[in-house]
Structure formats: structure tokens, C-alpha cells
């Protein structure tokens, strides 16, 4: 097998699986079919590491930057599919979904994976835009799956805000094309990443500047940066929990990837404005705002959705600062956040089924009633709050140190945001985990394996990051400039 076969497989597998799952009756078979397809996609993506890379084509390419994203994407896609297979049957039993809905859900899941993978490997700014749009539309439909008042409102809001974001991103894409066209010529060549990067130095800088603002606001809406984040908590809270995990762990990253690509383009043009300060400002605003909002949440999924905004803020801040260390920290934090946050949502899904409620006030004493789940949650929440020895601690530590050397005053704001979030999460965690178990205590259906697998990875990386991974991230960080 060559790498271009593997690259094709990463796209063809989910697309074919989506078609097959749409036709397959019976939710058990389709749930496990979903897992199998996700696993094969992950295997194909992982093989890209060892295989020789193909030359970038007109539509697809693979390089040091996107391979990190694609492997992470397919891995979490697989574990979330596994969790979903164990979780969704109970949703059917309690009548929140119908068998027809479920068939639709599994087909949409694979279609979404296809959209995200395509966005990550596309070598064409137009194709990337189409792919992100596709991934968004599929998640909109899945957020509305339960058809309750709240789910419909969340889906509608997500759809409207997401569409405006994606429309602005398209306008930005058109402007990039218009900046490239006098240099690279008309048509296809002016939309290919690898061409754009080589020719970027002679583009019209003013045009690129305006384009970047549109792209940052457009794709930034998808990243969930404040003040464009309004869709995010609703979409996380009202959709099926595996989808919350995928939204936080993956879709936000895909949008972030688009922003990073365009940041690279800006950096290649000497006359264009430096995108750093804009990203630093948006990142800090998101961090502090979301950290403050954590205190007043009453719904457990909303709580962790705001925590996602906070972490995306940290990541964008790190990439905005730039430089090898900050970029390294940003990449590491992105990977750690994806793993930890999806683990938390796996736990939250099981909790919501046990308690029959997502209200924070009704969730008490989980370590007593369900020790494996309760301690898993404790571990995951302590990690996401940034306690050592988790990988999140390491990446946050790196962000703070590099910010000390580059912009000492802003470090104060950064640390304030981190402490605020830490306090809020710890306060909630003691309620969830300890004390007398309260409320309903139904048996647990969701599998705990994905949760513990993610946490084992996060701890392993926090304690002893493999040298190969360090080298890899250093290369990518240097690439990001």
C-alpha cells in the first residue's frame, strides 16, 4: 500500500460507510458498523506516519502539519464511535430516539468524519471550505436529533451562526483568490495551498489583510471564540453526548486548522499585517470570558462546553504568540484538550443516563455509587483543570512560560483566566464526585473503556512524552513560525 492509497482510504472509507449505514436496518449492526468503519479509517490515517508521502496533488496533500490533525481526528472519531455504540441503545430504550433516527444518525456520523477528513487533507482552499461546510451541516442535523424544544433551538442557532460564519469565510477565500490571481494566474492554480505558499510573498498585502480578517471571524465562529461563541454551549448541551465529544474534540480543531493555514499564508507575505496580535486578543477574551461563565452553569454539559471555549482560547493565544516554544505548547495543548475533553464527555454521557438528568444539582457522590466512572471523571476533570502530572498541565505550563518571555503583562491576564477556570471546575467536581449519592441511580450502559484509554494516554504523555513525538511536534512548531 502506498501513502496515496492510504490517503484515499481516509476519505473513501467514511463516505462508503455513510452510504452503507444509511441502507442498513437494525441499530445494533449499524452501531458496530460505525465503529468498524471508524477503526479502519484510523488505521489508514495512522499508516500515513510510516509510508512515504506522495507529491501534493491538485486536491489532496499531506504534510507535517495536517498529519497530526488527521491522526488525532480519526482516533477520537473511533473512540467516540465506540462509546456511541454502547451508549445509544439506552437512548432508544428510553424513547429519546427512534430506530429510523438512529440509522440516520450513524450515516451522518460517517458523513461528518468524511467532511472533517477532507477539510484536513485538502490542498485547495475552495475544497477545504466545502468540506468544513459539509461537516457543519451534518453536525447541525445531529444536534437536532432529539427533536425537543431545546434541541431544535440549539440546532437552529448553530445553523444560523454557523452559516454566517461560513459565509464570511467564503468571502475571505474569494479575496485570497483575488490576491493570488495576478501572481499565479487564473483558475485552479491560484487556489492550491502549496502554490499559494510559494507565491505568497508577491501577493497584494492589503487584500490579504482584509481576507484574513474575514477568515478569522468566519472560521473563528466555528472554533467557538468569544464573542462568536453563542452557538457552542447550546449545541453541546442539547445534542447526543457522543456528538458533544466529537464537536469539542474534533470540529473545533478542524476550524482551528483552517485558521492556522491562513496564518501561515499571512506570515509568508512580508507586507501583510502580523496575525498574532488579533489571535492573542481573541484567545485571551475567550479564555477570561469562558472562565468567568463557568461559575454560573447549572447544566453539566454546558459547564464543559464553556470549558472548551476556554481551552480553545488558550490554544489560539499560544499560536497567536508564535515562536517555536509557544507553537509547540499550542499543538500539545490542542491534542491534550481533544483527548481529555472527549473523555469528559464520555463520562458525562454515562452520568446523564444514570441520573436521568443533566442538572449539576442532581449529580452527587459518583465515586460512591459508581467508583470506576466517578474516579474516571475526577481524573479527567483534574486533568482539564491543569493539575500535574497530566499532559494538560505540561502544555499549559509551556504556554505560561513562553508568554512570560514574550508578553509579560498579558501573562497576568492569562494566569487569572486559568485560575478562575481551575476554581470553578474544582468547585463543581467536589459536588459531582463526593458526598452522599443523590437522585436516581440507574445502572450504567455506556462503556468506560474509551474514557480510561484517553486518560491513560493523557497521563502517559504528561509523565513521559515519547522522544519521537517531541521531535515531530518541534518540526511542526518550526513550520508554523
Amino acid at each position, binding site marked *: 500500500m502506498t501513502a496515496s492509497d492510504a490517503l484515499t482510504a481516509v476519505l473513501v472509507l467514511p463516505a462508503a460507510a455513510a452510504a452503507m449505514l444509511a441502507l442498513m436496518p437494525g441499530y445494533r449492526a449499524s452501531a458496530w458498523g460505525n465503529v468498524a468503519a471508524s477503526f479502519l479509517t484510523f488505521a489508514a490515517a495512522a499508516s500515513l506516519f510510516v509510508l512515504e508521502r506522495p507529491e501534493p496533488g491538485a486536491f489532496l496533500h499531506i504534510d507535517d502539519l495536517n498529519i497530526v490533525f488527521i491522526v488525532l481526528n480519526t482516533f477520537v472519531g473511533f473512540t467516540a464511535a465506540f462509546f456511541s455504540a454502547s451508549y445509544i441503545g439506552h437512548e432508544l430504550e428510553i424513547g429519546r430516539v427512534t430506530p429510523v433516527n438512529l440509522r440516520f444518525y450513524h450515516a451522518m456520523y460517517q458523513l461528518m468524519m468524511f467532511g472533517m477528513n477532507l477539510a484536513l487533507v485538502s490542498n485547495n482552499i*475552495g475544497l477545504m471550505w466545502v468540506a468544513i461546510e459539509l461537516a457543519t451541516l451534518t453536525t447541525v442535523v445531529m444536534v437536532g436529533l432529539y427533536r425537543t424544544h431545546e434541541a431544535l433551538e440549539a440546532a437552529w442557532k448553530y445553523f444560523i451562526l454557523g*452559516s454566517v460564519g461560513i459565509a464570511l469565510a467564503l468571502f475571505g477565500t474569494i479575496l485570497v483568490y483575488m490576491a493570488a490571481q495576478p501572481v499565479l494566474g487564473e483558475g485552479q492554480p491560484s487556489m492550491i495551498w502549496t502554490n499559494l505558499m510559494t507565491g505568497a510573498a508577491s501577493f497584494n498585502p492589503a487584500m490579504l489583510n482584509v481576507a484574513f480578517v474575514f477568515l478569522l471571524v468566519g472560521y473563528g465562529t466555528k472554533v467557538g471564540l468569544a464573542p462568536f461563541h453563542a452557538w457552542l454551549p447550546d449545541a453541546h448541551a442539547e445534542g447526543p453526548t457522543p456528538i458533544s465529544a466529537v464537536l469539542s474534540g474534533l470540529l473545533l480543531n478542524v476550524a482551528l486548522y483552517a485558521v492556522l493555514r491562513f496564518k501561515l499564508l499571512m506570515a509568508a507575505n512580508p507586507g501583510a499585517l502580523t496575525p498574532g496580535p488579533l489571535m492573542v486578543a481573541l484567545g485571551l477574551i475567550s479564555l477570561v470570558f469562558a472562565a468567568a461563565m463557568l461559575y454560573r452553569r447549572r447544566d453539566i454539559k454546558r459547564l464543559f462546553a464553556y470549558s472548551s471555549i476556554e481551552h480553545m482560547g488558550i490554544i489560539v493565544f499560544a499560536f497567536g504568540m508564535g515562536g517555536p516554544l509557544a507553537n509547540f505548547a499550542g499543538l500539545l495543548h490542542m491534542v491534550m484538550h481533544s483527548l481529555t475533553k472527549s473523555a469528559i464527555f464520555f463520562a458525562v454521557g454515562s452520568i446523564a443516563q444514570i441520573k436521568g438528568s443533566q442538572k449539576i444539582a442532581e449529580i452527587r457522590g459518583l465515586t460512591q455509587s459508581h467508583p470506576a466512572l466517578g474516579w474516571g471523571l475526577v481524573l479527567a476533570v483534574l486533568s482539564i483543570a491543569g493539575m500535574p502530572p497530566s499532559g494538560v498541565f505540561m502544555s499549559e505550563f509551556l504556554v505560561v512560560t513562553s508568554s512570560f518571555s514574550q508578553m509579560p503583562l498579558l501573562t497576568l491576564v492569562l494566569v487569572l483566566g486559568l485560575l478562575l477556570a481551575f476554581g470553578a471546575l474544582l468547585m463543581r467536581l467536589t459536588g459531582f464526585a463526593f458526598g452522599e449519592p443523590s437522585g436516581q441511580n440507574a445502572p450504567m450502559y455506556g462503556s468506560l473503556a474509551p474514557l480510561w484509554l484517553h486518560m491513560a494516554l493523557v497521563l502517559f504523555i504528561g509523565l513521559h512524552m515519547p522522544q519521537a513525538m517531541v521531535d515531530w511536534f518541534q518540526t511542526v512548531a518550526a513550520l508554523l513560525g
Partner: protein
Amino acid sequence: MHDYAFDIAHLLASSLVLVSFMLIYQDRIYALLNVFALQALLLAFAVAWQAWIQGAHHLYVSAAIALIFKAMIVPWALHRMVQRLGIQREVETVVGVVPTMLVGMGLVALSVLLMLQLTEAAESAIAREDLAFSLSVILLGMLMMVTRRNAVSQVVGFMSLENGLILAATGAQGMPFVVEISVAFSVLIAMIVIGVFLFRIRERFDTVDVEVLDQYRGERQ
């Protein structure tokens, strides 16, 4: 010949902006849908004219999509939906028409100033004008989305925003075909999704007024 080509492109693109203003002051749903159809029709002409002067034949496809899908099928479908579902016929606004118009004028001035200055170096005057007008249409569409309460008029605002995007894409010389098709295609998908949503919203609520949806926003007690 060139001046003549420019004049017509200019006329069509600027009438799109004017129709965007007309959309803002409509207070009845049916009238709103008719004006939207008019805008899509003008867009079809504008795109066809670009196809003619650029000699880019694939743009005729985009024009045809705008004509058949956006100017005919979509307004007709929405018309029927309003009728069938017994949706309220008046457009409710969050802000009055006069302030909205004033803000709209400000947005148009802003986009013209920004775009003309930005593209000073560009050789083609048509591309410059198109870009300025299309940004105006996009901003006016957004303005409409935020100042309306009914779901249907928000959808119309979104589609008029998409009209602006297509105008921008066709104005960019030689922009690859894949993008036009994808834009048109995404509109189609978007409409299906919206249709599904409107239907479900109707299934659950007695109105498609987004304000009613807002009551469920935030933390559930």
C-alpha cells in the same frame, strides 16, 4: 465596447444592492419573498453578463441555477410553506425600519470605501465594482438576519447574503468552476436543512417566530 460592458455590469450589480434595501423595508412575508425572487433574477442576469464579457461559459450554469432554483423554486416553496403552515403573514422587526435603513446605508458606504481602496491596484474595474457591491449585499443580508424575528425572513436574509457571495465569486476572474457549483450546491443543502427545520419547528411550536424559541434559551431550571 468595454465601457458598455462595464456600464451594464455596474447597473446589474448596483441594482442588487438596491433590492437588498427593498428587502429591508418589506413588512409582509409574501412581498418579501417576491422581492427576494427579483433579487435572484437580477443575480442571474448579472452572472450571465459576467459569463458573456469574461467568455467564461461555465458561469452560465451558475446563472441558470440562480434563475431556476433561487428565483423560482425557492420562493415558490417558501410561499407554499407559509400558506400551508399558516405562518403569520407580517414580518416582525426587532429594530424599526428607519434606523435599519440608516445602518444599511452606513454599511454600504463602508464596504465601498474599503473595497475600492483595497483593489486600487487591480486592473479590472468590473472586478473592483463587483467586489464593493457584493460586500454591500452580504452586509445588508446580515443586517436583515439580525433585525428580523421570523424564521422565514431570517432565511431570506441568509439567502440574500448568499447572492452577494455568488456575485463576488463570479466577479473574481477565472475563479475555478468547482467553487461556483459548490456554492450553488451548498445553497441547495442549506435549503433542505432549513426546510427540515422549519417543518420540525412547526411540528413542535405554533409559530416559527424565533423569539418564541428564545424562551427556551439558556439554563433549564
